[in-house]
């Protein structure tokens, strides 16, 4: 059975329709890349799957593990294993990264029927995952994302993903704002988390990231629809000729 099945999904923000009929099926273990020009709806798709209430779904359905995803609250989706690595991770002043992540992990564990981790076990787990992301331990004691550099924020996202071990990870422009070294570290972390039971949707503007995180499928989103799908070669083609060169315009831009 597929893990995620999106059928004819329509979504609006305010009055504006952004998703105009998305179809996408993700099976366990698959990595799907979603590419597309600015404003094509990539981030919206990521946010809608995560349950952001800012966007209203006006049509279609989304099945996650056979269940009606759209009927679930964002926290329930998270507890069931959906993880969104944010394009712009949010700062939460005064709340330590460690305290926050422990609370998050324990709610997720509870849902999975696992016992809650105490402070010691949690610390051990966290130390192990930090190595993966080449992170400094001081980041743990600092308030969530507060005063983090762009690169630190992105690393922190993937670090959280490593700790929470989701079934479906959605990486929203995780490469934006990263220099090449940071990109390697982040991609290395993501690759280490690839697993036959874990699916990923990698939203990116540039092909560059896909050199490091090699996808099984590439989809091109434009004007709120998937206009082209293919293997990893599609990304290379896009890189060469650009979106316009392949006749792909955002509706707004084309008009």
């Amino acid at each position: 059975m597929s893990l995620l099945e999106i059928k004819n999904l329509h979504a609006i923000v305010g009055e504006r329709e952004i998703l105009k009929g998305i179809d996408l099926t993700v099976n366990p273990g698959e990595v799907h890349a979603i590419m597309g020009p600015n404003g094509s709806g990539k981030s919206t798709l990521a946010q809608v799957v995560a349950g952001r209430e800012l966007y209203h779904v006006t049509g279609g359905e989304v099945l996650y593990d056979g269940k009606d995803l759209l009927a679930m609250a964002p926290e329930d989706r998270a507890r069931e294993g959906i993880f969104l690595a944010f394009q712009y991770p949010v700062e939460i002043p005064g709340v330590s990264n460690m305290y926050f992540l422990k609370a998050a992990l324990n709610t997720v564990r509870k849902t999975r029927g696992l016992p809650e981790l105490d402070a010691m076990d949690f610390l051990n787990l966290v130390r192990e995952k930090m190595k993966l992301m080449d992170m400094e331990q001081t980041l743990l004691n600092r308030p969530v994302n507060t005063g983090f550099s762009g690169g630190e924020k992105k690393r922190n996202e993937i670090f959280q993903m490593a700790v929470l071990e989701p079934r479906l990870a959605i990486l929203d422009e995780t490469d934006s704002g990263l220099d090449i070294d940071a990109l390697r570290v982040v991609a290395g972390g993501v690759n280490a988390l690839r697993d036959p039971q874990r699916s990923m949707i990698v939203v990116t503007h540039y092909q560059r990231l896909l050199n490091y995180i090699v996808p099984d499928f590439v989809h091109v989103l434009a004007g709120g629809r998937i206009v082209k799908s293919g293997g990893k070669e599609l990304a290379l083609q896009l890189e060469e000729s650009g979106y316009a060169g392949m006749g792909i315009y955002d509706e707004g831009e084309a008009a």
Partner: protein
Amino acid sequence: MSSPPNTIETLANQEYKWGFVTDIEADAIPRGLSEDVIRLISAKKQEPEWLLDWRLKAYRHWQTMQEPTWANVHYPPIDYQDIIYYAAPKSKKDAPKSLDEVDPELLKTYEKLGIPLKEQELLAGVAVDAVFDSVSVATTFKGKLKAMGIIFCSFSEAVREHPDLVRKYLGTVVPSSDNFFAALNSAVFSDGSFCYVPKGVRCPMELSTYFRINAKDTGQFERTLIIADEGAYVSYLEGCTAPMRDTNQLHAAVVELIALDNAQIKYSTVQNWYPGDKEGKGGIYNFVTKRGACRGVNSKISWTQVETGSAITWKYPSCLLMGDNSVGEFYSVAVTNNYQQADTGTKMIHIGKNTTSTIVSKGISAGHGQNTYRGGVKILKSATGARNYSQCDSMLMGDQCGAHTFPYLEVKNTSSQVEHEASTSKIGEDQIFYLRQRGLSTEDAVSMIVHGFCKEVFRELPMEFAVEAQKLLGISLEGSVG
């Protein structure tokens, strides 16, 4: 929250008892305030002549005073002749017979705070006959304190048992003529707490009215007096984290703290009185005068408050830094939700040399709440080398609420240093979504964000208080976002 069965009406409709002086059996006295009423209160409490005179002097002064209007709060005029000034102890007849008669909203809150059933009954004012566990706790506790020479009792008991101490210190920090509400309190105060820690004694436990079971019905005009003699230390917890069943509308309490040479007093409050309903009906007016005098050298007074209740809060716990090197601190979290209004802050008056003060104020407004920080830092000419640091942060939830900051500075000594920082932030839908995306419920998310915002204040609270304060904040702000 509905008010319990017409206590006030019952009292008001009872037979008019003017020959009252001998009738000590009566639960309450008629409405209104006059010298006779004050004489009656004093007589009921079998007070000495000097205290009655003190009350009367306060009353006469009060009559010449105007209710203050400078605070940023709005409420209909209070009819001071429509208040019953003495109604203790509350009769068991009027109390709910069991928890079934108590407002379910209140019970829901108790449940969320994890308060045991027996305590719920006590807090809700249920007439319980069974011996409550804490009574024995309180007794052993009192024995231990007594052995160390610490006096901790109700104000009335202190007047009877330790009149010299009371007379020596009462009204020396907050004079009876200090302000409208303090004068009113001085005239009619019913009861309260008294604490004296002798020279060189460090009180080994947090003192709390909670342990003093007889303090639960001290009424609306409470009076607290705490004295830490030379080298003494005491940490005092006021009130209770659970909302008290209370029919009173106006609370005008006075708290006086006195720290002598090298003494330290830490005073923590978690106030969660009835804030009124979602439309802003009902709720308590909390008009409190709290002041501490650091009389001795190297003395320290630290106020920590978490204010989540009351319809209106008017409260400025302050420090008079008289002794050289004395230290004053004020840490505050004030939450206003729905139609609550809070005008709160502190005054730090630097008199002695090298005195220092720290002010950390966190205001949270949600719903239609209005939150005002009002702080005064005054450095007198004599206060060479004085320093103050103030930080006031406001957090807004939604777009109907308000945050206001009025810092007043008066510096008369050029060798002093004063710093003020202020910020206003809005709790973001994006912050909440971020936390929910990691599996936290909206409630937990709001509570975590707010807790982070208040962290500097919470860490000043005693451990168990801090945990409950965090839960309380979550409950107070429930439904205010998302």
